[in-house]
Structure formats: structure tokens, C-alpha cells
């Protein structure tokens, strides 16, 4: 637990959900601020300066994606979108608009906390912590451009390294297919999901204990990939 308690703004029009989230996040040591609609959310954002905003996309007074545009891009606060199941397109749109991550309703409490931790992690981590990411028995050293399993170097191709590094720069956060294709293969290859699938598969052969049951590089169907770091 960091020295200063982190502040989380919950934006949801359902009081039941706010009560639940307040209990869950409070128990985990966070300070919770609530907003029931977009107007309250914007003013709470300005006044309380939360470290994380948990935004439900289905608000009564404003389109959720519009609010994402207003709340994003603030390096001091991460934005996690909460949406109903099966709205893959909406999730991807929110991520493309700059949301850091998403959780799906009904959410698993542990998963929610993991997302919050991941979104806070980067901003709280020290320079060295940011440069070395540990996932399972794999260590990814972004500075030395090296992958090690239990200390032994694992050989990866340049494309595989770029892909793994991109994931490791945002440990625990989902990166959309488009984001990964754009940063690893270039803007012209954004539609080539097949490249990404093939590269992920060969990367898994090298870093996963059981490549057919991946634990480190996990897929969110229709959305993207996430590197699951070891929690400190």
C-alpha cells in the first residue's frame, strides 16, 4: 500500500453499485468519491482530483463515450470504463478514445481491483520498476532489451521483442489489436490481425509454461491482449 491513500472517483447512476464499489474499494484502502451522473462526475474530477476514475458508460445525462473524451488524457488520473457485457464495440471505442482499461458488468471483485492496481502502477512505479517487468518466471528488461526466464536469456525475434515490449510498457492493461498492430507493424498494417495472432502464438511458445493455456499474455475476445504482471 502506498504512503498516501489513492483516491478513486466512482461514476455510476445505480446507488446499489456505488455502495458495493465503495465497500470493495474502501476495504482495499482507497478513498472513494461518488458521482451519480456526468455533471457530478466532471465537477468531482475538477475538485477531488482522483487518481482513478471508474466510469459507467450508461449514464442518464450524457453519452458515455463523450464523457470518456472529456475525462481522458489527464496524466494524473487513470480512466477505467465499466460497461455491460457484450458491448465489445463500445469497449474498443472507449479504449481508442483514450480510456486506460475496462471492466465488464457484472464484474469480479478481484479483477476490478487488479485493473485499478494496474492503472495506478505505472504512475506510482519508480523508474527502475518501470523498466523491468516480471510476469510469471519471465523478466522483461526494457532497458537492456532482454527477456529472461529464471535468469536465462530467451531468444525472441525483433518483431516479437517489439510486441512484448509494447505489452510490458503497460503491464496489466489491455492493449487493443489496433494499438498493437500500429505500434509494432506500423499504421499501414492495422487491419492485419493475422500477423498479431501469429506473433503472439510464437511469443507464447517462448514465454508461457503451457502455450496452449496461456497465463501471461491473455486475450480479451475481440478487444486485445494484456500482459499479466506479477503483483508486487
Amino acid at each position, binding site marked *: 500500500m502506498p504512503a498516501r491513500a489513492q483516491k478513486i472517483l466512482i461514476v455510476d447512476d445505480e446507488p446499489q453499485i456505488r455502495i458495493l464499489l465503495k465497500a470493495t474499494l474502501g476495504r482495499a484502502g482507497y478513498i472513494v468519491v461518488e458521482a451519480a451522473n456526468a455533471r457530478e462526475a466532471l465537477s468531482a474530477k475538477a475538485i477531488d482530483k482522483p487518481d482513478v476514475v471508474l466510469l459507467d458508460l450508461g449514464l442518464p445525462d450524457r453519452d458515455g463515450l463523450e464523457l470518456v473524451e472529456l475525462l481522458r488524457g489527464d496524466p494524473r488520473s487513470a480512466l477505467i470504463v465499466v460497461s455491460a457485457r*457484450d458491448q*465489445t464495440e463500445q469497449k474498443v471505442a472507449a479504449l481508442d478514445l483514450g480510456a486506460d482499461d475496462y471492466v465488464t458488468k457484472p464484474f469480479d471483485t478481484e479483477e476490478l481491483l487488479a485493473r485499478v492496481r494496474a492503472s495506478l502502477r505505472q504512475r506510482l512505479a519508480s523508474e527502475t520498476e518501470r523498466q523491468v517487468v516480471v510476469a510469471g518466471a519471465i523478466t522483461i528488461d526494457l532497458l537492456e532489451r532482454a527477456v529472461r526466464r529464471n535468469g536465462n536469456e530467451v531468444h525472441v525475434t525483433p518483431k516479437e521483442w517489439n510486441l512484448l515490449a509494447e505489452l510490458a510498457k503497460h503491464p496489466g492493461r489491455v492493449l487493443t*489489436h489496433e494499438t498493437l498492430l500500429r505500434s509494432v507493424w506500423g499504421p499501414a498494417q492495422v487491419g492485419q490481425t493475422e500477423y498479431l495472432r501469429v506473433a503472439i502464438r510464437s511469443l507464447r511458445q517462448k514465454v508461457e509454461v503451457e*502455450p496452449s*493455456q496461456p497465463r501471461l499474455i*491473455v486475450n*480479451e*475476445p475481440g478487444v486485445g491482449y494484456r500482459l499479466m504482471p506479477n503483483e508486487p
Partner: protein
Amino acid sequence: MTEIDVTRADTSIATRIQAYAGATAMVAVSTLVGLWIAPRWGTAPVDMIYLPSVLAAAALWGLGPAVVAGIAAALAYNFFFTAPIHTFQMDRVTDVVTVAVLLIVALVTSKLAAGIRSQARIAEAHAARNATIGGFAGKLLSLSREAEIAEAACTELHRLFDCNAILVSGLPEPRMIAAVPAGNRLTPSDVAAAALTLESGERAGRGTNRSQPAEWVFSPVRSSAAVIAAAGLARDDGHIPVDDEQLPLLENLLDQLALALERVRAEADVREVSSLRERDRLRSALLSSVGHDLRTPLTAIIGAAAELRCDDSNGPALVATLETEAGKLERYISNLLDMARIEAGAVKLRTEPVDLVDAVAAALKDLRTTLAERRVEVELPSDLHLVRADPQLLHHSLINLIDNASRHSQPNGAICISGTNAKGEVRLTIEDEGPGLPQETERPLDTFMRIEGSDRKGGTGLGLAIVKAFTEAMGAKVTAANRDGERGSVFTIRFPQLLVIEPMESADAG
């Protein structure tokens, strides 16, 4: 198919001249024979000599040449063999009789022969026409789509009548549904003629007394109830494409076409009715499942919560019940929503290359609470091909199949998920060690497999119906079978070759 011109008798002038010349030549030969016989045995047998010539001419060439042969024979007999010789006068009654008999023989024989010949020709024509019609009907029989039938019919009409053929249907604005050769155009007066045929069921257009300015001549394609189309024929040289003799054949062919079109429409109707019936069954099964599948977990949740309030000594167990039952409710609601989308025809496909490793891992992650007490084995080879699929539809299909396998397994029973590249397709199988299915052989997944069966296992009943609808929407298939020689069932999703992505050759991915 026999290719015979079935309607036109062979009547060329050259052939006719040949026949008359032949008849005359035969009489001349008979006369020469008679002249050779008469000095030796007298003239008595000579009249008999002419008989074969007349009979032969009648049998071979018909009435005209036979009469010519008869008259020529009578004249020659009279001239060469009856007294006074070398005149056309006749003294004796017997000679008159001979001449008369020769003429009568010519008439009667030729009549008989002509009758037989024309019957033979008619029989031949019938056979050829039947063969033509049969071949035409046979070609249409193998086709199952209206457009294919229209196209094939035009091709055949084009070939048989050696003219351009089109098929037109629809009122008030007739539309071309097939054309051979392709690219035929209709003038406004052709369209008017086609409309006339479609309205009245009568021929119209060129060469008829209706809409004569048209370039095409249209004939009705009639079913028992209505005129369903009009067949248009035209020749590039502007001649009338089908003469009156060929008309009955054309009509017969168009009747066959009408039958074929009616058959296809009836088949489509049957399909529609059966899909409506399936939807009705689905809807009523859905309603009856709501009662059971919503109430059971809700009862457990309400009961566990009440128990917790009174006495929390069983806390962890009751909380586990709450979680499990709520999870069931969640999945059920998700299935209800999926079903509503299927019912409303609102399933949108967003396909992309998918790694089944990802798909299986994501499904297992979502089902982790359910599968806590199951052994799950995953065998997905590293060279398993990618498939083109909708990640969400596939995700829900897999969740339902794995959930189904889990529900039918004993605690600690194994669930095996494996993938194979097989003969161009990719197969993903989900096996359980449960009681298996009440069927002998592998067969396509039945929408009502669980819904109609007993539901003691607490299945939502909708799961397999959703699997079927979603996989079929993606172009894949699901089959269900029992395990070979062992207890348990096997569900297989088959991605056909069309959906399989062969490994890339370039190193772009590396």
C-alpha cells in the same frame, strides 16, 4: 439427347424429282424385261412384270411417283404388248382390265405405304420430342434455385431453337430474370409484349397478332394457378424464331419449366414454414425454461441470504452458494439476451482471424468458478490453423459447450478440449465423461436436444440452441456424438476450409 428436326418433313424438290425419275426408270426396266419375255413365252406374264415396279414405287416414294409408275406401266403395256402393238388402242377387254388393275394397285399400295411411313415419322418425331422434353426437364430437375433454372432453361431454348432466349417475370414492370446470350436488351414495345403475355397468358410480340412492333415473341410459362413468367425468343436476323409446327414443342418445354419453377417455390415455402415452426417451438421452450432456470438459482440465493442473516455459522458455504447461483443467473441472462438477438435476427457478424488458443483460454477464464471442481485438459497443437470467426459469438458458443460438458460431468470428471487440423478443416472438440447422448451416431447439433430432454442437470436449455445458431451464423457447424467406446459425449465445432487461414508464407509476422 436425340437431335432430329422433329417437325419438318423432307420435301425438297430435288428429292421429289429423284422419286419420279426412279419410278419411271423402274417401269422402263420392267418394259425391257417384258420385251425380252414376250417373244419367247407370249405377253400373258408381262402384266405381272409391271406389278413389282408399281408396288416398289408406291412403297418407296408414296402416292405421286406410284401413280406416275402405274400410268407409265399401263401406257407401256398398252403400247408394247397389247394388240394392236405400238399403238395406244386396246382391243381386248382383258387388256383394259390389266391397265385398270395396275392403276388400282398403284393407288392402294401407295396409300398404305404412305400411311405406314407417316406413322413411322410421327412415332419418330414423338420419340425425338419426348427425348427433347425429357432432357430439358432432367436438366432443370437437378437445379434448386430459381435463377439457376431460369438460366438453364434459356440456355436450352437458345440451343434447341437456335435463337436468343430470355425469361421475364413480374408485373406491372416485367423484369428479365435470365438471358442467353447474356446482355440481351428489351425495347419498350418488347416490355409491353412481355407484360401482355404475363397478364393474359397468351403469346404476344413478333409474328403474333398482339404487339407486333416487338422484336421478341413471348410465350407464357404457366403453372396450374397463374402465369409465372414469359419466355421471349428472337433471332438476330429478324426471322420468326419458332414456326407453327414447332409451337407445340415449345409449349411442352415451357410447361416443364413451369413445373420446375413451381417445385422450387414450393420447396422455399416448405423451408419457411419449417423455420417458422422451429421458431415457435423455440419460443415456447424458452418461456417454459424461464420459469425453471430463473427460479431455481433465485430460490437458492434468497434462501442462502436469509440463512446468513439468521445464523452465519455456515457463512463460507452459503456465500459460495450465493456466488455459484448468481453466476448461473448471469449466464442464463446472457443466454436470454443472445437468444433474443437470434430471434430478432440481430446477430451481427464481426469476423477476424482468431487463434483458438485465445478463444478457449478466454472461455475457461470466464467459467473458472464453474470449473473449480473439474479437471480440464486442453490439447491445442502449436500448428493449429487460425480460423476466421466472430470472437464474441465464438466466446459464447464455447462457454455454452464447456458449461454443458461441466454440468454433465461428475466432480473431478475430466473435460477435454482439443483442436486438430483435419483435411483442410479445423475441428475443436469438447469431450466430457458424463452419461452421453441418447443417440447412436454423430449428427448435427439439434436445437432441442436439451430443451426437450429432462432438465434435471439444471441446464439452461438454451445453451445448445445458441451454440447452433452462433456457429452456423459464422459458417461453421457443430456435431454431437458419443465418445468411442467410452462414456461421455463429444461436441465438435467444425470450421470448414473456407474459414481456415493457412499459415502465412512471408516472415511479416516474425
